[in-house]
């Protein structure tokens, strides 16, 4: 396994090459971990059937990536992280596209990336994992607080702020619509989760979203 650094604004993100491509004509698979996780040391067994390179990104404040001072995490910031990884990976891809595989919080970010960069994402696979539920779907009585500085990952601010990140279903659905509008695939999103919080149930109900087992999703986007 090798690790390279990808810059996103003032953050150095760790991009882990978990396995080289078996078939050089196959596109890369980008793994996005869940909340509080980091990229595993080796490619998980459930994705080893993938023929392209398997790469994992450590989000800001996670794994080997930079810990920012004083928090300020949002899902949209992590979308920027994923986009920085995308920019690095499309250069290695035979067709200029990648497939995204996200667990928990990473599933939500993967969906956002599939909508934001639809022409470069050949399918987003969403799987159960930490941070899948997310925060409320509308305004709440909020608490504000501060935490002592941390020099270890995961950053406690990441755990708290991303754990309560707003996910209104209509906002999330708009990323599905963008993915469909900009992708060559008729069904560019695959929901493979058992747990379906409100936002994800709304995603799964959308036209253009597959509700399939993981193995089938991997095969479809290969």
């Amino acid at each position: 396994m090798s690790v390279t650094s990808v810059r996103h604004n003032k953050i150095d993100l760790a991009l882990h090459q978990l396995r080289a491509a078996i078939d050089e004509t196959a596109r890369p698979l980008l793994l996005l971990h869940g909340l509080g996780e980091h990229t595993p040391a080796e490619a998980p067994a459930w994705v080893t059937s993938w023929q392209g390179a398997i790469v994992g990104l450590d989000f800001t404040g996670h794994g080997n990536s930079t810990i920012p001072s004083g928090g300020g995490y949002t899902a949209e910031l992590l979308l920027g992280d994923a986009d920085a990884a995308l920019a690095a990976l499309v250069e290695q891809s035979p067709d200029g596209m990648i497939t995204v595989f996200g667990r928990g919080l990473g599933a939500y970010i993967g969906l956002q990336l599939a909508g934001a960069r639809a022409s470069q994402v050949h399918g987003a696979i969403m799987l159960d994992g930490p941070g899948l539920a997310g925060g409320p779907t509308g305004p709440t009585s909020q608490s504000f607080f501060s935490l002592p500085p941390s020099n270890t990952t995961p950053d406690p601010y990441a755990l708290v702020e991303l754990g309560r990140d707003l996910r209104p279903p209509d906002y999330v659905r708009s990323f599905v619509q963008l993915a469909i509008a900009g992708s060559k695939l008729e069904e560019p999103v695959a929901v493979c989760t058992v747990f379906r919080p409100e936002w994800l149930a709304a995603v799964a109900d959308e036209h253009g979203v597959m509700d399939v087992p993981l193995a089938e999703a991997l095969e479809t986007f290969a």
Partner: protein
Amino acid sequence: MPHGTPAPNLRQHDYRRTLATVSHTAAILDQTVPFPGAEAPSRQYDIDANGIRIAIHEWGDADAPPMLAVHGGFDFARTFDLFAPRLAAGGWRVVSWDQRGHGDSGHAELYSWDADMRDALAVFDHVGRGGPLPVVGHSKGGALMTQLADAQPFRFTGLVNMDGIPYKRNIPDIAEHERSKMMAKDIASWLDHRRRTSDLQRKPGTIDELAQRRGRMNPRLEVEWLRRLVTTGGFESEDGWRWKIDSSMRFGGFGPPRPEWTLMRLPGLPMPFLGILGSEMEEMGWGTPPKKVLPYMPLQGRCEVLEGVGHFVHVEQPQLVADLVLDFFGGLK
């Protein structure tokens, strides 16, 4: 790396050193453009807000009762150079701070609404020592304080919100696919910007050039005032003046929160509340029609609408607005 072990490359560039040096130089040369009625702060110092350096600016007698003044987005504390001295003349110690990434405060790795709120709490704790404070906020500063007043009412004796009451934008009735295209464009533009920010610098220019650029966002403000802003919110280097604000920041953006969610918090505010709105809509304003806000006033609240005044009510009419604020807080002193 296993969970809980130290990560390498934990901290990025120390922007503080650069800015501190620049501030020091500016103080020696004092190139501040004069403007009638404007005064520099009496005291300036930094506090540490959980790892972020926050620059504090104070006007008035150090022993006078404190009042917090919170600036808007893409502004900085010195934009109160006209307004704060008038409040100080009314017997207050006016305390403002540069929000993270703005003015003389540190440039953070991340920016968010919650992070701004956290920095604000550090200032409240520093100034109020646990007690409630009178607070006046402009634009984004007003919206931030409205949300904080709802979440932590015990920190406020009263709140003045100057043209910082967000309202649902009137988006023309467009087809759904057109709306999606607009969103796609916004997101792609934001992501493209993020890809460039690691080595992005603000464009240098002369004082007049920067004032002219600022004037596009602040078309109602006098050129001399904009020139002063360059010398209080910018720094001079070998190739010209630049704004101090972090180059990674930009106007707009996207995300799930909606402007009207702040408005919904207004009716329940338990402290005395004064809204001051300008009737003229502007680029940097929320585009809030005053008549839409009036039904949301809290029980102890009222709203003053200043006819013929734009978003920067405290710059266009500093004495009038200061008098309103002094009168409002006078009874609470």
